[in-house]
């Protein structure tokens, strides 16, 4: 070979390359470190005894039979290990007068949701623990369940927590008139009522309850035998968990070490200080032995926190020529029985996103968080922003319909134009960059919007059984959580900064310690690309260390599409410091003055000469430390903390076409196109993958998933048989693309991509379902738009359908949901 691909010898830039992931090798060969894989000498296993009732007082617990079983080490009630006295933390008191119930690790005298733990069994094996858990006899006195948010707020309602005197957790209000960021929405809407040139559109939408369903069930192992108590846990937030455990349990923080080894997905569901983590720790402390807890999938569906669950009452005033004049948002958000780590703040994040990409002159947001006797809700992919995006994008379609405008034209008329950035919104955020026109134009073209509209008209004319529907969602989101000062103004209990440290090893290899904690995102690959470019070292020379509070002692973990937009910038800052620290040493080695040096492609060079020294050689030089300048330390390692000044604002245009079988109500995906602007892209492969997965979850909210309860407060969707996730056979291939406007608030120009697909897709799908069958008299369908609901909406004179119309029982045909009853005992093949 005499030619090379890179004849100029210029290094290939890593940023922007579709690098295959470093993480993959272990994962595709089964060489993994899931928490449940952990085996320690003398390891004990626990099983948690859980309440079958949604609301009950505990009259007594008889553990005697369970204790008799060979292999049982101990059976503890809450009081035995002090679990009833624990106050699991909520880090986000959204208002000064927020009402917080005590959330114990195990219930002492009263259970407030079906699945709440009441006792724990410790055994030599998981099998024996399970056997014994079934022998624990708990005597309950059932109380009235509290299930309906509106009923729960009425006078005389049964109280989930009588000591709070109300089922209202908090009311959080934003009024642009009061904030000075816009007019008074109440006035704007009331003026519109009596204005012949305006219409007022009112809608109620329901965000159903969802379950994150990370594929790896949660697991925790605690080893108390060393000087530090070590917890391995399947968590997104090892750092927060460590600090919170210290604060909650009064443990010295320096005696704790938390490790998140391989973590199999989270989607917000593993942002928690889980009662089971605390119970595992308490048991291990009590017995002085390592202890493991691993949940089953049905235990996970029942007790790991749920997401969404809102009633949205939305009012928009708009002039007849299609200019929005006011928006009023009233939310009820179901907290469930207790407050999760950030649960009360999740709906509040939506306050900043209901105005979305539109110029809305007057805006009011009023959210009441409500306690019910259900599993608590907390972050689930998008957290507050999907709810807001769904609300506004559904409402935009409804308003366009009432105005008789094409839905995309109505959006265009109201959105922020590309030359209006930076733009400060009515909810006070400043969007740095964006170009909604560019993303929309490209999406419309890829989708063949006009062609599909034509096909739709033809099918309608023919009266086809399968009608075509087209749905739009033009969205933005706030990513990169978060500027610490903003979090402070929202009464959040921590900052939003992120940390990275770079260790330059003697052999020239580079260890990068990050505070974000990946569980599928590909940080090891993307951050290696960033470091390779920053330091001019090889992609393979970089190792990303994370998820262990011993190596990564400072961090705020992974959620809210923050890992790149905040954590990635910390990496850049640390690399800049490495170069800064290396510079005087380079100057010394090159016998030049610092001012004559330039750094490029991993090398300090003396300007105008061919003299130079590589940063990896400098690492070796400071390791030997035989010869370095006076007055500096022989060390080029660096540590940086980055606190963003602003959120980032990815946006995009999502277009969905569905086929609706008008005879059966079945909805099938037909075509999906999205063009997302996520700022500069570090690794297009990873970005595309994040979008695909996000879309699948957002589509699943629209069509498939719901955590439903019966009227006793029992979770009907308690297994994966009943909580219907889409498989590959239910979805289609998506057409995705990117437009790019670089973010101006960080040096990489990145915006974040983790949640975009989920946030944008749900309203696009529901809008398309309704678009397909509106001509049959259909007005609205609650999510998920199941075949039964779609068919019912076509049949019902109201043109609507939802859960209220349905029998509140699990399907008898759901196999495992039904086998409990009338199972033949023996005899059958």
């Amino acid at each position, binding site marked *: 070979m005499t030619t090379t691909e890179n004849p100029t010898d210029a290094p290939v830039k890593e940023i922007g390359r579709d690098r295959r992931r470093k993480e993959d090798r272990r994962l595709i060969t089964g060489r993994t470190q899931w928490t449940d894989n952990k085996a320690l000498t003398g390891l004990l296993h626990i099983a948690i005894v859980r309440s079958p009732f949604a609301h009950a007082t505990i009259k007594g617990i008889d553990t005697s039979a369970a204790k008799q079983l060979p292999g049982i080490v101990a059976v503890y009630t809450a009081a035995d290990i002090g679990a009833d006295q624990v106050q699991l933390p909520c880090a986000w008191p959204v208002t000064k007068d927020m009402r917080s119930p005590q959330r114990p690790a195990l219930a002492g005298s009263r259970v407030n949701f079906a699945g709440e733990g009441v006792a724990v069994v410790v055994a030599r094996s998981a099998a024996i623990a399970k056997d014994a858990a079934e022998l624990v006899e708990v005597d309950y006195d059932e109380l009235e369940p509290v299930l309906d948010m509106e009923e729960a707020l009425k006078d005389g309602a049964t109280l989930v927590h009588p000591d709070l005197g109300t089922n209202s957790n908090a009311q959080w209000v934003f009024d642009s008139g009061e904030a000075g960021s816009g007019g008074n929405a109440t006035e704007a809407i009331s003026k519109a009522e009596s204005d012949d040139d305006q219409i007022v559109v009112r809608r109620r939408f329901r965000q159903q309850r969802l379950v994150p369903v990370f594929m790896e069930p949660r697991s925790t192992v605690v080893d108390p035998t060393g000087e530090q108590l070590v917890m391995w846990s399947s968590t997104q937030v090892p750092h927060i968990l460590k600090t919170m455990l210290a604060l909650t349990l009064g443990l010295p923080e320096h005696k704790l070490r938390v490790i998140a080894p391989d973590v199999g997905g989270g989607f917000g569901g593993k942002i928690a200080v889980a009662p089971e983590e605390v119970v595992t720790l308490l048991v291990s402390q009590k017995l002085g032995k390592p202890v493991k807890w691993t949940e*089953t999938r049905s235990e996970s569906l029942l007790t790991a926190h749920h997401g969404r669950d809102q009633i949205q009452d939305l009012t928009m005033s708009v002039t007849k020529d299609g200019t929005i004049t006011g928006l009023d948002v009233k939310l009820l958000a179901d907290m469930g029985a207790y407050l999760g780590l950030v649960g009360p703040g999740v709906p509040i994040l939506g306050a900043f996103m209901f105005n979305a990409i539109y110029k809305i002159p007057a805006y009011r947001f009023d959210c009441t968080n409500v306690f019910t006797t259900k599993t608590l809700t907390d972050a689930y992919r998008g957290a507050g922003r999907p709810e807001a995006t769904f609300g506004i994008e559904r409402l935009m379609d409804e308003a366009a319909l009432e105005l008789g405008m094409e839905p995309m034209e109505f959006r265009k008329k109201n959105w922020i134009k590309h030359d209006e950035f930076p733009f400060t919104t009515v909810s006070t955020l400043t969007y740095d960059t964006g170009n909604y026109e560019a993303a929309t134009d490209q999406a419309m073209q890829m989708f063949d919007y006009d062609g599909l509209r034509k096909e739709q008209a033809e099918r309608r004319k023919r009266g086809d059984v399968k009608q075509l529907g087209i749905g739009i969602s033009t969205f933005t989101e706030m990513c990169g959580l978060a500027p610490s000062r903003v979090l402070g103004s929202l009464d959040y209990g921590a900052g939003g900064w992120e940390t990275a440290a770079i260790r330059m090893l003697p052999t020239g290899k580079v260890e990068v310690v990050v505070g974000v904690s990946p569980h599928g995102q590909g940080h090891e690959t993307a951050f290696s690309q960033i470091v390779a470019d920053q330091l001019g070292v090889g992609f393979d020379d970089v190792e990303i260390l994370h998820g262990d509070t011993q190596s990564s002692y400072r961090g705020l973990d992974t959620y809210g599409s923050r890992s790149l937009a905040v954590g990635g910038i910390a990496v850049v800052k640390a690399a800049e410091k490495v170069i800064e620290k290396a510079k005087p040493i380079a100057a010394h080695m090159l016998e030049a003055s610092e001012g004559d040096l330039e750094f490029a492609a991993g090398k300090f060079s003396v300007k105008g000469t061919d003299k130079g020294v590589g940063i990896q050689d400098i690492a070796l030089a400071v390791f030997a430390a035989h010869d370095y300048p006076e007055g500096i330390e022989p060390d080029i390692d660096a540590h940086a903390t980055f606190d963003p000044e602003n959120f980032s604002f990815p946006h995009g245009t999502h277009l969905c076409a569905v086929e609706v079988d008008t005879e059966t109500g079945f909805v099938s995906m037909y075509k999906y196109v999205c063009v997302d602007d996520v700022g500069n892209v570090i690794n297009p492969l990873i970005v595309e993958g994040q979008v695909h997965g996000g879309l699948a979850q957002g589509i699943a909210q629209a069509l498939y998933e719901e955590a439903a309860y019966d009227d006793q407060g029992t979770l009907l969707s308690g297994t994966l048989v009943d909580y219907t996730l889409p498989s590959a056979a239910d979805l289609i291939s998506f057409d995705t693309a990117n437009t790019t406007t670089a973010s101006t608030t960080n040096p990489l120009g990145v915006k974040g991509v983790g949640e975009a697909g989920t946030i944008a897709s749900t309203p696009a799908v529901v809008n398309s379902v309704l678009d397909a069958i509106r001509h049959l008299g259909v007005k609205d369908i609650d999510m998920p738009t199941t*075949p039964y609901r779609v068919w019912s909406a076509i049949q019902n004179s109201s043109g609507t359908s939802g859960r209220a119309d349905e029998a509140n029982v*699990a399907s008898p045909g*759901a196999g495992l949901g039904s086998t409990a009853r009338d199972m033949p005992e*023996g*005899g*059958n093949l």
Partner: protein
Amino acid sequence: MIPAQFDYVRPTTVEEALQALRDGGDDAKLLAGGQSLLPVLRLRMADPSLIIDLGGIPELRGVREDGNEVVVGAMTSHHDVTRDDILRQHVALIQEATKTVADPQVRHRGTLGGALAHADPAGDLAAPALALEAKFVIAGANGTRTVAAADFFEDYFATAIGEGELLTEIRFPKYTGWGARYEKFNRVAQAWSIVAVAATIKVDGGTISDARIGLTNMAGTPVRATAVESALVGQSATEDNVRKAAQAAAEGTSPTADADAGTDYREHLARVLTGRAVLAAAG
């Protein structure tokens, strides 16, 4: 995720299996492919004291012709059913329905006899077996007896298989040259049938000369859509004729209401899907 404790035996002949059933008494449970039983055990919805694994009895496996019948051993896997040439030629409907059962992994282990004996009302093989007028050969202490499909399915998860008995084979009459379609309707690919329709149709010169139709999940047991069958016979296989006949599909059914479907919706689906199944089978 961990079943309660049980004892386990693996007989090698039907006789041994029957003896084990007698010895095990009320608490013994037969394990066929285990694809319904193991989940039930994992969730501790049942806790038998003895599991009798039929996996070691070669005589219970395989497909053979016997005169005018095709005989399928109860332990023949779904996978084998879907690939069998004899069934393809003579009993296409059971093959079509079997292809829709669960997923490939489950079809590798699950068995025809196991699924039929489990008698889940949402299971996909009972309705075709009923429509095909299969006969169930049941072995017991006093030898074997044969039960017609119409008498085999008694209720939710209940069949004519008695205490101390086991299903050994399923005998299908030959439907050589009949078209077949199993029209399954579920929420997601993994979900059980909300309603499904099994239809096998004989068409001679464009006219339907015979029809067999069974409905899944329209009652505690599979239901035969006899009114539709009679309405179809003698008709030309046009969309109009078929849809008209299919209007009688919900007659004699008693579907339940649940979160996936009300009774009226199930009845409606039975009519729509019957029309589609018949048209496809007649096509």
